[in-house]
């Protein structure tokens, strides 16, 4: 406090204090009595009690295989409505202390709409990097709409680990049906022990199924099953480049054929039959992703997400004039999920389609090999020419040196040295 201001400030304080004292009775009168200062929820309590009853009754009578209450459908609606409101209440607090409770609720509730709202509530609170480990399982829910909600929950948080998770998980197709993990055994593909199926990174129609490993090492499992390898991912792509290209080409050809077939069909009139029209559009959408482009997202192993993947070839078959890696496992680190992972891959196109695609690629391969042979020959010839030129230059230099020395010696003799 500056000395010059002290008296006036003190005076102001005194006057205000006196003023406050003079107003004190008004304030006291305005102050609520002590009894009213207790949590004032008297008016709200009956409603809360009713909500408590709804939840308690539903959990008591309607959970399990044999509901005890005939009114469970109605009770379920009330139960869901009450908990949806509760999730919104907790989400709007933005209080991080509720996050683990909400995750636990998410894991234990079978009601899809409640899991979606739990994800929204966590998003409202705002997750942090330290929550990643408990949020990852939410992104692998068997219901696409729930995964979609989890996908939208992640960007509400901040942090590098959350950013990585956001990059790793893809936007989902809509759907409320519970998906079942594809049985890899149907495709004669081995699954490492203690693996967890990843819904969003798997598509049997494209020959790709992904897993993470809870404990242990998938590499040693696949090493024991491998016919060839291990290869680094880039090394594998280089070694089998024609084979992989044939597969892409065969898929694109199949896609074009399916597209043409669909084009020849008359699209249903949405005004007359909306259902048939939706089915037609879905078919169109499915055809549009049937080609090699649809498979591409499974075969992009970005280093920040997967580290340095290793490939184990599980089966190699001679088809036409080439030997194809028809089954293989790509083993990597799921860096966003902080767990080891792997993707099973197999060829989905028929052998005949590969043979057909081979015709063009064999020609290309031969041309490329001929081109490489020619350029090798050219390189060798160029090197030979260069060596000859070097030798000629050396000889010329030697001759010039000799002539110079002779001239110098002659001059010295003439001068009498």
């Amino acid at each position: 406090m500056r000395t010059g201001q002290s008296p006036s400030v003190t005076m102001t304080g005194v006057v205000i204090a006196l003023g406050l004292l003079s107003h004190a009775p008004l304030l006291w009168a305005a102050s609520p009595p002590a009894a009213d200062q207790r949590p004032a929820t008297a008016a709200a309590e009956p409603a809360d009690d009713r909500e408590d009853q709804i939840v308690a009754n539903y959990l008591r009578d309607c959970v399990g295989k044999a509901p005890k209450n005939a009114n469970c459908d109605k009770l379920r609606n009330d139960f869901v409505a009450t908990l949806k409101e509760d999730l919104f209440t907790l989400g709007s607090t933005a209080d991080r202390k509720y996050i683990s409770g909400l995750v636990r609720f998410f894991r234990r509730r079978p009601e899809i709409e409640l899991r979606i709202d739990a994800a929204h509530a966590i998003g409202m609170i705002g997750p942090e990097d330290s929550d990643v480990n408990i949020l990852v399982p939410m992104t692998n829910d068997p219901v696409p709409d729930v995964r979609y909600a989890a996908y939208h929950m992640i960007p509400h948080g901040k942090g590098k680990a959350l950013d990585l998770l956001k990059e790793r998980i893809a936007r989902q197709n809509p759907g409320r049906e519970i998906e079942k993990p594809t049985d890899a055994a149907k495709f004669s593909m081995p699954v490492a022990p203690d693996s967890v199926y990843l819904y969003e990174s798997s598509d049997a129609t494209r020959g790709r199924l992904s897993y993470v490993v809870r404990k242990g090492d998938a590499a040693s499992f696949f090493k024991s099953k491998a016919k060839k390898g291990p290869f680094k991912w880039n090394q594998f792509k280089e070694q089998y480049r024609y084979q992989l290209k044939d597969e892409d080409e065969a898929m694109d050809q199949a896609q074009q054929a399916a597209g043409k077939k669909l084009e020849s069909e008359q699209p249903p009139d949405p005004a007359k039959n909306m259902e048939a029209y939706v089915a037609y559009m879905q078919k169109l959408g499915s055809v549009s992703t049937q080609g090699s482009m649809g498979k591409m997202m499974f075969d992009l192993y970005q280093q920040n997400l997967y580290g340095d993947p290793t490939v184990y070839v599980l089966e190699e078959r001679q088809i036409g004039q080439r030997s194809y890696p028809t089954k293989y496992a790509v083993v990597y680190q799921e860096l966003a999920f902080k767990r080891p992972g792997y993707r099973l891959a197999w060829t989905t196109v028929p052998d005949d389609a590969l043979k057909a695609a081979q015709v063009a690629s064999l020609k290309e391969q031969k041309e490329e090999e001929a081109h490489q042979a020619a350029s090798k020959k050219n390189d060798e010839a160029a090197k030979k020419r260069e060596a000859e030129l070097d030798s000629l230059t050396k000889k010329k230099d030697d001759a010039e040196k000799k002539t110079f020395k002779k001239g110098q010696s002659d001059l010295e003799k003439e001068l009498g040295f």
Partner: protein
Amino acid sequence: MVNFRMLLSAVSLSIAMLSWPQAGSGAAKSCVENMNDIYKRVQALDMDDNLTNVLAKASVRGKAQEYINDTLPAFKAACPTEANSIKDLENGNYLKKLAAEREKRRKAFARIKAASGGFSDGPGEDRDLEDLEVQR
């Protein structure tokens, strides 16, 4: 004596009105901003009171009420435009609202907890939440 008290209060109110920051006066805060600050402060103190109450199993609003009692008279004089908010604080409605919200959250969390099959918040409780496979 009454006249002296009236005079004193008039003087104090005038000083308070003059010393309270006015809207648009340079860096000084407007009445609305100051009102928001008061609300935030009351909210924080109420939370503090609640924590103390929970720990001591008591039911008082010491700090929040004290702050309201200390702050409002001068503010009321300086910012008559905020009469509704001041009234809200003076009559205790705001504190009641805070308590009601807190109770609503408590009950909401209790129901969420019950619907999850119950759980404790102790250390290590989150470990099972990391398992990627959720049984449905």
